[in-house]
């Protein structure tokens, strides 16, 4: 069966190779909030509302100073998880496409249920961090649910003759 919009199977391995170190760095960044000084550089920005954090003037389509550690982590995590989530399975077919769709719907519900709860009951910086996590968790929930469903489907096979 032709499955549109999926990446070639090899992208899954590349995704895992990027994901593991990116995740470890992400946890390190969240726990320590350290910004390595050598990553302080000038970057182009569509918009930098720096006033919120450090009192700088707004930058619109211009150059601004930034530590790119969190950008590198965010970029690596999103790209790697998209590779893992949306690369074709070796035996991709219509049944796996069904599992894929169900997992995506499930992940979207869970992700936004958490966000709704956070909107109602979490305030301050904790809410900000939940918003940050929420960018990644939809893909993470999908990967977990999809692979669990595939594992379950494989597991029932062992009992079949």
């Amino acid at each position, binding site marked *: *069966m032709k499955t549109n919009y999926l990446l070639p199977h090899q992208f899954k391995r590349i995704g895992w190779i990027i994901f593991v170190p990116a995740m470890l760095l992400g946890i390190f960044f969240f726990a320590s909030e350290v910004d390595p000084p050598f990553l302080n550089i000038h970057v182009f920005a569509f918009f930098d509302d720096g006033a919120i954090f450090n009192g700088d003037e707004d930058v619109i389509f211009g150059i601004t100073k930034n530590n790119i550690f969190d950008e590198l982590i965010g970029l690596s995590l999103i790209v790697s998880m998209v590779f893992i989530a949306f690369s074709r399975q070796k*035996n991709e*077919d*219509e*049944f*796996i496409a069904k599992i894929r769709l169900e997992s995506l719907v499930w992940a979207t519900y869970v992700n936004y249920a958490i966000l709704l709860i956070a909107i109602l009951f979490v305030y301050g910086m904790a809410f900000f961090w939940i918003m940050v996590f929420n960018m990644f968790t939809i893909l993470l929930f999908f990967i977990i649910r999809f692979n669990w469903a595939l594992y379950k489907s494989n597991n029932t*096979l062992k009992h079949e003759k």
Partner: protein
Amino acid sequence: MKNSVRLERAVLDVSQAELGSMVQVSRQTINAIEGGEYNPSVILSLKLASVFNKHVTEIFELEESDWACD
């Protein structure tokens, strides 16, 4: 929807994996169809019918519950 894929496969004397490769799907898919867990697409149903040398309606049969609205 009821189906007789397991029975027809036994008549043909092939494994789930072999049948899967004959109709270009995975072994999991054949297993899910036989278990009534998954209803195949029209194309796959026609491929299965062709492999078994039967009409689709001889392999797949609607049940009362298939007419119920969700």
